[in-house]
């Protein structure tokens, strides 16, 4: 059972030497209790204390890292079932399946895509990072693994049933932490031995949670920490059930044998590429750590990466933006001025459209307690005699003294009144109602 911070503190050296990175042993104890630190960080714990604490200090879902550098994928360390309780820790690693029967041209173009593909969304760079290499022939497996490492620097999953083949492919790349896939009831001892020898993570796979837990317990008994689970779910319903029961086992039951992140293969569930993306979405929403696709068509990868970001973003992220003037596309004194409310979704939508238009503009975001334009208008917050003083105080007149401002199309009716309230030669223009029409509007405006 989990120990409290105080119980853990009693087992520490109490010298406050700071080598663990914490100011005091007590602080370190609290971190351990919260599952936020690893006991290994303190070089002075006694072996007895270690044995006692080992169980308590590990996070309910173990941390596993595959790959190195920019392409490294870290998964696990999750502590909850629902994202509103606490932010989900690590976005799943998305990747592509490369098989032994593909010709070199196909392999290289997938690797090139894996290397190049990235999307920018709300200030984050999202990208796939994993190459899952599957080849029955051991030499081909090793060759493709080396190629994926060399050309894309990918985080690798090596797929073969034969421990010797896995060893041959993984050995030259062991510093890159490839994931060996998979140890099953039939080959567990051999695969685990290779993982231990090379010090790389490995996956365990079974067709029921009970058998999976037996293998997980074996791994724990041998002190393996970096293990990934594949419950080999047959249907989408089984994916939901297995992923949910595994996560519950880890966080509600502190059942260590299933306290590891998971891997899923939507690429094997259907031949319909769009259906595959929909299945992959289920893995992403429901706790999977690594998700393997059959190719990297950007029209399918992009929504899946966005979904990962959405599900793993901090639920405490406020729905409001700070009031102020936001420059977009490097505006100058002649650039158009737009005003809208500080509801974060309004802001994201409008700013992404302005950005897409490539027209430089000033976006004035007014604090209306995070309401959308229509709601704020109806509540008397986004109205002429509130907007005018905000604009005057915002400092926009120094940045762009042209005295022309565009209001959202939904509040067209306030334009006259706002002109009066602003006075001083201000001109109010009525913009579009839907953010999607902003680029057209701005481009037209910049032509005039």
């Amino acid at each position, binding site marked *: 059972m989990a120990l409290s911070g105080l119980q853990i503190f009693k087992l520490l050296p109490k010298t406050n030497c700071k080598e663990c990175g914490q100011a005091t042993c007590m602080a370190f104890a609290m971190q351990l209790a919260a599952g936020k630190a690893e006991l290994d960080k303190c070089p002075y714990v006694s072996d007895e204390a270690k044995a006692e604490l080992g169980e308590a200090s590990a996070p309910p879902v173990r941390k596993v890292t595959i790959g190195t550098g920019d392409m490294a994928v870290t998964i696990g360390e999750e502590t909850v079932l629902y994202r509103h309780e606490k932010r989900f820790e690590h976005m799943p690693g998305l990747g592509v399946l490369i098989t032994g029967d593909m010709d070199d041209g196909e392999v290289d173009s997938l690797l090139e895509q894996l290397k190049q593909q990235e999307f920018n969304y709300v200030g984050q760079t999202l990208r796939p990072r994993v190459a899952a290499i599957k080849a029955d022939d051991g030499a081909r497996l090793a060759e493709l693994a080396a190629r994926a490492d060399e050309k894309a620097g990918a985080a690798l999953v090596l797929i073969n049933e034969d421990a010797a083949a896995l060893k041959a492919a993984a050995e030259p790349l062991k510093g890159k932490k490839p994931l060996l896939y998979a140890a099953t009831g039939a080959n567990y001892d051999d695969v685990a031995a290779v993982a231990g020898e090379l010090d790389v993570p490995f996956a365990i796979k079974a067709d029921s949670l009970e058998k999976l837990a037996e293998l997980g317990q074996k791994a724990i008994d041998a002190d393996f920490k970096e293990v990934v689970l594949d419950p080999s779910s047959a249907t989408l319903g089984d994916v939901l059930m297995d992923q949910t029961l595994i996560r519950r086992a880890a966080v509600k039951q502190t059942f260590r044998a299933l306290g590891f992140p998971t891997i899923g293969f939507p690429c094997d569930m259907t031949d319909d590429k769009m259906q595959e993306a929909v299945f992959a*979405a289920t893995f992403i929403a429901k706790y999977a750590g690594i998700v393997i696709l059959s190719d990297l068509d950007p029209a399918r990868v992009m929504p899946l990466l966005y979904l990962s970001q959405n599900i793993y973003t901090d639920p405490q992220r406020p729905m409001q933006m700070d009031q102020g003037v936001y420059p977009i596309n490097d505006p100058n004194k002649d650039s158009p001025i737009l005003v809208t409310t500080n509801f974060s979704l309004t802001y994201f939508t409008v700013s992404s459209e302005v950005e897409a238009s490539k027209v430089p503009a000033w976006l004035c975001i007014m604090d209306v307690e995070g309401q959308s334009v229509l709601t704020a208008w*109806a509540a008397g917050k986004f109205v002429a005699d509130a907007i005018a003083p905000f604009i005057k105080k915002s400092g926009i007149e120094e940045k762009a003294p042209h005295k022309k401002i565009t209001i959202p199309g939904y509040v067209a009716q306030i334009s006259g009144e706002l002109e009066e309230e602003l006075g001083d030669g201000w001109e109010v223009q009525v913009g579009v109602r839907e953010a999607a029409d902003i680029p057209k509007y701005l481009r037209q405006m910049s032509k005039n």
Partner: protein
Amino acid sequence: MSFQPHLEKCKGSIREVAVGAEGRIGGESTFPFHLWEGEMPNAPMIAMEVYDEPQPDWPEAVRKVYEGVMDDPVAWAKKCQDELKADAVCLQLRSIDPNGTDASADEAAETVKKVTAVLDIPVFVYGTGSADKDADVLKKIAEALPDENIPLGPVDDSNHRLVGAAAMGYKKPVIAFTSMDVNLAKQLNVLLVQLGVPEDKVIVDPTTGALGYGLEYCYSIMERDRLAALLQGDDKMQMPIFNNLAPETWKAKESRVSEEEEPTYGDVETRGILWEAITATTLLLSGTDVLVMRHPRAVELVRTAIEGLQAQSKEQLNNE
């Protein structure tokens, strides 16, 4: 130590609401698709959109599907039922928008009458979110179609008395709309029930955010709704959930911008369809009961996902 899965025992269940002549939504006694520990008697219903005026600004991918029927809501509705095999239709009354065409309540009621006359499947009727006008129109529709079991929405805290009274008088379900907030959602349910609207005639619209545009807020609000309804047994939260997602996903930049403009984004049609289908699938997992959808291919993808989610090998659990 052998593994015993942790099964959740729910105190409450979601109310079953009758829609149309034979439709049923809700009724779950467990979390979405947790069929290994509870019942989900009705699969989530997909209501395909019909608009009462043409939508020239839609992206090509959806415009071409509805090309010949855009100016005729009756033909559009029949296409959804007969050709696209929709479970239900959601009639989006865009024409009543006071800032747009501003059609009258009588005109809107006439359209609803014509549409319901040709359909056997359930019809949901949705206004534009302008509280006063919606109240006018929805009230008129309730009066004009006394015998049709059509859910009417959106009803919010400012027009719930007017619409609620009409809905009660004519036994219509209402769709209670609140803006991404669990407590406000509960409060509006309480207000409607206090007014006298039967508890099994209330459906909840928690506000739907598209993928990339607030989906996660809506996802967590729905999860919290379901935790309150099922685990805590809060009977003011045990209403089926309605997600009006298509208008949101199809206005997202990522569903519209062409591959020529954004060469790294890939095919725009695939992207638009998946934006809708992935948003819908995520909502399936957080507890939706009605998905309002637009593209037939996206509908097909989500139907297959629903069938897939219903297929579970329960025998692998030693249940007790």
